[in-house]
């Protein structure tokens, strides 16, 4: 059994129900006519192949049939998070331990408390 969390069904489902669909967060150029051949070729054909954290597009093919994103470690194959379309990943190459948003909030709170103590 290998279970993947579907952010739309809000539960873990068997891997058989999912299909990978390649790299995530590929933005189509806003004005294709203004692109050079190289830019357009990069957009259409060229994909990253990182060692480590990679963001992928998956589809829950036998289920809700929704597309969603997975952050996966290509070395350990560990799935770090799954998130809905339009959302931003928490784990990135810069922040392999998770974006410091929550950590920063916690730290800020701590600082505030200390300052409170000082005052």
């Amino acid at each position, binding site marked *: 059994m290998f279970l993947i969390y579907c952010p739309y069904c809000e*539960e873990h489902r068997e891997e058989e129900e999912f299909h990978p669909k390649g790299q995530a967060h590929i933005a189509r150029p806003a004005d294709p006519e203004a692109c050079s051949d190289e830019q357009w070729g990069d957009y259409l054909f060229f994909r990253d192949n990182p060692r480590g954290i990679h963001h992928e597009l998956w589809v829950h093919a*036998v289920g*809700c049939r*929704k597309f969603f994103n997975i952050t996966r470690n290509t070395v350990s194959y560990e799935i770090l998070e799954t998130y809905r379309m339009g959302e931003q990943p928490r784990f990135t190459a810069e922040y392999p331990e998770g974006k410091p948003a929550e950590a920063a909030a916690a730290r800020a709170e701590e600082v505030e408390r200390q300052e409170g103590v000082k005052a």
Partner: protein
Amino acid sequence: MSEQTASWYNLYDARPQAEVPAESPLAWSYQHSGRPSVGEKSRVVLRERALAGHLILRGGAIVLDEAVRQVLGVGLPGRPNTLTLDESGERSIQWLSPDEWLVIVPGGEEFALEKRLREALGDAHYAIVNASGGQTLIELSGDKARELLMKSTPYDVHPEAFPVGKGVTTVFAKANLILRRPTEERWELVLRRSFADYLYRWILDAGAEYAIGVEE
């Protein structure tokens, strides 16, 4: 062109007025693979609710919920993988995806229901598809029904993981179907027409050790 909203639609009654014999997707399978009779030893019983009305609703939850409450008298299940039934238990609405629901009503009601829903929805952004001809519903009951499911699907069908009122689309014997549990003893399987014969034969084979019987 963009000025015009979809205020018109084509709505057909898929059931002919003339006496044309209608057959369920399993009609051929019953002849070809037979129907084991229900006996005292049968610990799994299969029953088909043939030729029911199946409608797929798509659109925003709030708009659809209002229309469905008005027309059917029951609310749209808002939580993922849930199922609501009306008081008689004959009509059901199931969550399929964040913008998609399956309504199953007794056969013959679906045309009038679709019409009333379209009237209630007016100019809202939605889609209704009559899928009655594309799928069929079978029920499994008996004390070994859960064991039969455990042999066939990777989904956890333990009562704790699969309480009454839950319904999922999942893998079943390498095909896929909608599996749901409207009551404590009864499981419902919504099969696609093209998979119906294969799944029927799979279920007969898997149920052989429990002396599965098929009700007429």
